[in-house]
């Protein structure tokens, strides 16, 4: 009996020590997190103040150098502020609206520095400046509650976890929405993301579920007679589509096909794949071309091939004529996934190809690459391509592969606007 009491006393003591240790550890972690969040909050408040100063100062200058200095500052601070806001435990809505609004200011500054359209900047920013002042005041009020929590992290956490309509950021959230719409209305070619949603404008005739399965089996005869489960997209989806899930032997996969017109958006099939190659790269290419012919994709060419452990990923782009030359339209691309063991098509992504880009006439002014690049940079390949610039506008460009004539043969893909000679993209290909 005595021994039992003795043992129980030791067990209780050990448990107490363990509990004390765990509690102390949790308290220490909470303090660290509290300090980190408070630091981010203070940092964000300071950067917001700096941004506000820079925006109002940018309205002072006519001198190009002084103005460009402020524009650089605005772009830098807006990026840092976005990063600070993203690291704060704000509600999703407030965080998203802030990031968008601040990002718009930064992008506008970058664009103005590139184009030199200072008049437009000053016209737009006089409104933004006063809205930013109002937002900054509200931010000070909303965040003050976070600094008044006597070091009690649980209170901090409780405030941070409030639903948007109870949150101290309620007013900021409402104002950010209004200001975003008025200060930075969307442009016609806002983003590729928007373009995809524009699939809702497809006006083709509607097809039934069975017809959707027929489309799938025509494209992929290998899955004929699979077991299908077909559902339709939810009512809020920007464009209605059939979601077909299939099982055939060891293959499990899905395909999305538009209700209007029966266009395949994407397809993926999963099955065990042997890593050992059964088909050559040349055969993979032939199989890809055979599929394109069967699917009626006649204006595409392979632009990239990448082998990995189980499959090849192949990228194709639409090709159009530009005078006597051809140009690749990168935003109208298709991707294929082909198994290494048998050459079976495991995936197709055609979402961007369905709605083709409108090609506009654009001047093609020649470039002397010898003066465009430094000595030692060798232009190895040159072709024409349509690609989107920073303003999401489709531009005809020279696409060149440039190799630095050095020990490591550094290689770059450089895309240059054929009219303005603006460098649209630089990618390191090593």
């Amino acid at each position: 009996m005595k021994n039992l009491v003795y043992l129980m006393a030791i067990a209780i003591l050990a448990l107490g020590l363990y509990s004390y240790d765990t509690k102390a550890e949790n308290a220490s972690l909470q303090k660290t997190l509290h300090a980190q969040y408070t630091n981010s909050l203070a940092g964000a408040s300071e950067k917001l103040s700096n941004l506000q100063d820079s925006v109002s100062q940018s309205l002072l200058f006519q001198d190009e150098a002084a103005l460009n200095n402020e524009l650089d500052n605005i772009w830098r601070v807006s990026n840092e502020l976005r990063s600070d806001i993203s690291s704060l435990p704000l509600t999703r809505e407030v965080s998203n609206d802030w990031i968008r609004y601040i990002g718009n200011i930064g992008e506008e500054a970058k664009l103005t520095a590139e184009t030199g359209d200072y008049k437009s900047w000053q016209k737009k920013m006089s409104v933004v400046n006063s809205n930013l002042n109002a937002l900054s005041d509200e931010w000070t009020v909303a965040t003050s509650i976070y600094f008044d929590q006597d070091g009690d992290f649980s209170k901090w956490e409780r405030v941070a976890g409030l639903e948007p309509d109870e949150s101290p950021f309620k007013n900021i959230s409402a104002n950010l929405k209004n200001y975003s719409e008025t200060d930075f209305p969307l442009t016609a070619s806002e983003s590729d993301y928007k373009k995809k949603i524009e699939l809702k404008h497809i006006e083709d005739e509607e097809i039934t579920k069975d017809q959707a399965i027929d489309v799938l089996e025509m494209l992929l005869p290998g899955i004929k007679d699979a077991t299908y489960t077909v559902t339709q997209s939810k009512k809020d989806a920007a464009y209605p589509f059939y979601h077909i899930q299939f099982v055939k032997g060891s293959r499990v996969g899905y395909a999305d096909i538009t209700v209007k017109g029966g266009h395949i958006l994407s397809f993926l099939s999963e099955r065990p794949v042997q890593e050992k190659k059964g088909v050559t790269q040349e055969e993979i290419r032939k199989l890809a071309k055979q599929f394109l012919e069967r699917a009626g994709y006649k204006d595409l060419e392979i632009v990239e091939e990448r082998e990995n452990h189980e499959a090849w990923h192949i990228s194709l782009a639409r090709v159009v004529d530009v005078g006597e030359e051809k140009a690749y339209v990168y935003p109208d691309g298709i991707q294929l996934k082909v198994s290494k063991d048998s050459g079976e098509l495991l995936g197709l992504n055609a979402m961007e190809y369905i709605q083709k880009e409108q090609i506009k006439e654009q001047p093609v002014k020649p470039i002397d690459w010898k003066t465009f690049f430094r000595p030692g940079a060798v232009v190895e390949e040159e072709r024409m391509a349509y690609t989107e610039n920073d303003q999401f506008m489709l531009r005809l460009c020279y696409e060149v592969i440039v190799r630095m004539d050095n020990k490591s043969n550094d290689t770059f893909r450089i895309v240059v606007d054929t009219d303005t000679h603006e460098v649209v993209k630089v990618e390191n290909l090593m």
Partner: protein
Amino acid sequence: MIRTLIIAVILTFGTISIVKPSETYAFSGQVIERGAFGDDVIELQARLQYLGFYNGRIDGKFGYGTYWALRNFQQQYGLTVDGVAGKSTKDKLANNSDFDKEWVHTQINAGNEFTYYGGKPLDQQVKTNNGTAKKGASNSASVQLPVKYSERDLQLMANAVYGESRGEPYEGQVAVAAVILNRLESPDFPNSISEIIFQPGAFTAVADGQIWLTPNERAKEAVLDAMNGWDPTENALYYFNPKTATSKWIWSRPQIKQIGEHIFCY
């Protein structure tokens, strides 16, 4: 007569053995081109480095670095300069270089930094990782990605996908990866994959620590498909489990489709 026959046989076999190229390499019968990946490319890079044409990492990825090195080799050895390693190129390489397959693969699997230049002792060409890298990790983790993504992005996303959706169908795992990439394109979210994943409250797996579980190959393959353009969500920015979601706000988002246990929305 017998003597003549014996001489003829000896001459025939002798000629065959001289004419027949030395096939001391481990190359498969495949033609190796830009975009290829694997053991053939490792041998190609090692042999080109042995001869001083290739100065990059021996990683089994046939990119531009390997391509220019191969072209330079073909030019110097009087072969057709096309940057494609067919039979004649492979034979020429094999006859002029050495390849210690076991040693090279051991270094790659151990995650060591190494080179394979000819005329220099191999033990002087390797920097061991002192056990900091997992054995075998570098070989299986190594993949060819679209140029805008890094292997660090792949690893981080695979962790997130595995932590968030390992019990979901493959489509559902690609979908979670696609949501992360859609956020990267959206102006409402941070500008990097790590900031998106670690945004407070963005992913349950970060909050409950499941993001630190080791992802399987399936999760990595799902991320790879999403990085290559697949988006089973049709442009979703959010998803939630209707059985466990407590936020009123998430229910207010326009819904697109359901995959497994997750509803995807704008």
